[in-house]
C-alpha cells in the first residue's frame, strides 16, 4: 500500500481517466459510459464539497444540476447553437438560483436544511414539469444538439465523435476538481472543516458561520451546475427528472458510497453507481433495488464508504 500515498493515488486516477476511451472497450464498456461517469462524479464531488467538507446535507442539489441542464438546452434550442455560451448560461442560472435560495435557508441546520433544499428543488421540478410550451413539460426538451466547439485553430466535433466529447468533459471535470482541491486546502477550506467538526468552536474562533455555509453552498452548486450543463450536452436532451429529488438522492448516495470524507470518494461512488445502473438495468427493471441493497450494505458495514475501507487497511 506504500505506493498508494496521496500523490500515487492521484497519478493513478488521472492516468485511468485520461486513457479511459482506450481501456473501457477492453472491459466491456463504451465511451459514453465513461462520459456519464465523469458527469455524475463531478456532481457528486460538488455535492461533497458541502456534505463531506462542510458537514451540511443538501437533498436538493439536482435543482441546480437541472437548472444548468435546462439553461444549456434552452440556450441552444431557442437562442444560439453555441456550446460554450450555452454552458455559460446554464452555470450562471444554476449558481444564481443557489445564491438566492442559499441566502434564505442558511440559518437552518441538519434535517431542516435538508428538507427545505428538497422543497425548493421540487419547486423547480414542477415549474419545468408544468410549463409545457417552454420546457417541453414531461416530455422534456428534444430536437436540439450540442454544437461543435470552435477553438479558432480547429473545430471540435463533439457531436459525432464521442472520444472528443469525452475529453471535453474531462477538461471541465479536471478544472473543476482542481479548483475544489485548491479551495479545500486553503484557509477558507479549513474554516469549512472547522464548521463541520464543531460549529460552536468555529463560531467562537470568529468564523461567521452563516456566511461561510452560504459560500460553500453556492460554490458547491456552481460546480453541480457545470455537471448539469455537461449532462444536457451528453444526452442532447433534458427532462424534469434532471432536477427531481431522487436525482439529488443519487448524488448523496454516490458521495456516501464512495466515502464522503475522502476527496476521491464521490468519484468512486459515481463509478460504482453508474456502472451498476448500466449493467443491472440491462437485465432487470428493478436495478434501483440492487443499488439500494448495495448502498445499505456499505452504510451498515463500512460507514466511511468504499475508500474508507481502503484507507483503514492502508493505515493498519
Amino acid at each position, binding site marked *: 500500500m506504500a505506493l498508494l500515498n496521496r500523490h500515487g493515488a492521484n497519478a493513478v486516477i488521472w492516468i485511468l481517466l485520461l486513457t479511459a476511451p482506450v481501456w473501457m472497450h477492453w472491459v466491456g464498456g463504451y465511451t459514453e459510459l465513461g462520459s456519464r461517469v465523469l458527469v455524475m462524479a463531478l456532481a457528486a464531488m460538488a455535492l461533497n464539497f458541502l456534505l463531506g467538507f462542510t458537514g451540511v446535507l443538501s437533498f436538493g442539489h439536482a435543482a441546480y444540476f437541472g437548472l444548468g441542464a435546462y439553461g444549456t438546452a434552452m440556450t441552444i434550442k431557442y437562442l444560439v447553437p453555441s456550446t460554450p455560451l450555452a454552458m455559460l448560461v446554464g452555470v450562471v442560472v444554476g449558481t444564481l438560483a443557489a445564491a438566492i435560495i442559499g441566502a434564505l435557508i442558511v440559518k437552518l441546520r441538519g434535517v431542516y436544511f435538508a428538507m427545505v433544499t428538497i422543497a425548493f428543488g421540487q419547486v423547480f421540478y414542477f415549474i419545468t414539469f408544468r410549463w409545457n410550451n417552454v420546457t417541453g413539460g414531461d416530455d422534456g426538451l428534444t430536437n436540439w444538439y450540442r454544437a461543435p466547439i470552435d477553438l479558432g485553430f480547429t473545430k471540435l466535433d463533439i457531436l459525432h465523435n464521442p472520444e472528443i466529447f469525452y475529453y471535453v468533459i474531462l477538461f471541465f471535470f479536471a478544472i473543476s476538481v482542481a479548483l475544489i482541491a485548491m479551495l479545500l486546502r486553503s*484557509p*477558507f477550506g*479549513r474554516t469549512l*472543516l*472547522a464548521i463541520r467538526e464543531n460549529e460552536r*468552536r468555529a463560531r*467562537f*474562533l*470568529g*468564523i461567521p458561520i452563516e456566511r461561510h455555509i452560504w459560500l460553500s453552498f453556492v460554490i458547491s452548486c456552481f460546480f453541480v451546475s457545470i455537471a448539469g450543463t455537461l449532462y444536457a450536452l451528453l444526452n442532447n436532451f433534458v427532462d424534469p427528472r434532471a432536477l427531481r429529488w431522487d436525482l439529488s438522492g443519487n448524488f448523496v448516495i454516490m458521495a456516501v458510497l464512495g466515502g464522503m470524507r475522502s476527496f476521491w470518494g464521490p468519484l468512486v461512488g459515481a463509478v460504482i453507481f453508474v456502472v451498476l445502473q448500466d449493467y443491472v438495468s440491462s437485465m432487470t427493471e428493478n436495478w434501483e433495488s440492487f443499488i439500494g441493497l448495495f448502498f445499505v450494505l456499505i452504510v451498515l458495514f463500512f460507514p466511511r464508504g468504499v475508500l474508507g475501507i481502503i484507507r483503514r487497511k492502508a493505515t493498519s
Partner: protein
Amino acid sequence: MSLLRVESVSRNFGSLIAVREVSMTVEPGELRAVIGPNGAGKTTFFNLISGMLQPSAGRIVFDGEDITGLLPARRVWRGIARTFQITEIFPELTVRENLRIPVEGAAGHRLQPWLSRDADAAVRARVNELLDMGGLAAKADRLVGELSHGDQRATEIMMALALKPRLLLLDEPTAGMGDQETYDITRLIRRLHRDQRLSIVLIEHDMRVVFHLADRIMVLAEGAPLEEGTPAEIAASERVQAAYLGKAAA
C-alpha cells in the same frame, strides 16, 4: 480605562433568573476568577460576555465600546476569546490543524482561497510557536480527538490564544483533570498572565488553582454577586464561607 466593564447584566430563562444584576470590571493585565457553588450562574455570565447569550438587561462595554448586541464572531474579532467547560475542539483534525484555523483567522486569511508563500510561512511559524508554548509540539500531527483530556484542554487554550485575544475567558480549565495535568495547565495560565500580561477571566472550582492564580475574585451565588475582593479578603469573608466554603465543609 478598564478593558471590560459589565454593567448590571441580568439574564432570565422564563421565570428562572440565572444571572441577576451582576457587574464586574476587568483591568488590562488582570487575572480575575469567578467562583461560586454549582448553579450560581457562572457559565451563563460567561455566555453573556462572549455573546452566546444576550442579556435580558444591562450593558457590556469592551475597550470603551458597547458590545452588548454584537454577534459572537464580531466579539472575537475585537479580542475576546473563550474556552468551554466541556472541551470544544475539532476532534478529527490534527493538533496542528486545530491551531492553524484560528491563526489564519487572526491574520485575516479567513476567506482567502490561497495563501502567498510568505503568509503561509508566517502562519506555520506562529502555529509552531503556539505548539511549543502549549507543550504540544511532540503531538502536533496526531488527531486531537485521540489525545488525553489534559492535552485536549491545552489545545483548546492554545486555540483561543491563537486568536491573539486581549481578553481570555477560561471556563473551568482544570475540570476533570488529575493533579499533574492541573499543575501543568495552572502553570500555563500563570505564564500567559505573567509573561504576556494577558487579561484573563477564569471560572474555576479548584480553590488551589483560584488562590494561586487570581488577582481578584468575584463570588456568585444564586445568580447574584455575593462578594468581590483579593484572594485574602475572599478567604476571610464570613459571607462567602457561609454560602460556599461553609457548605462544602459541612
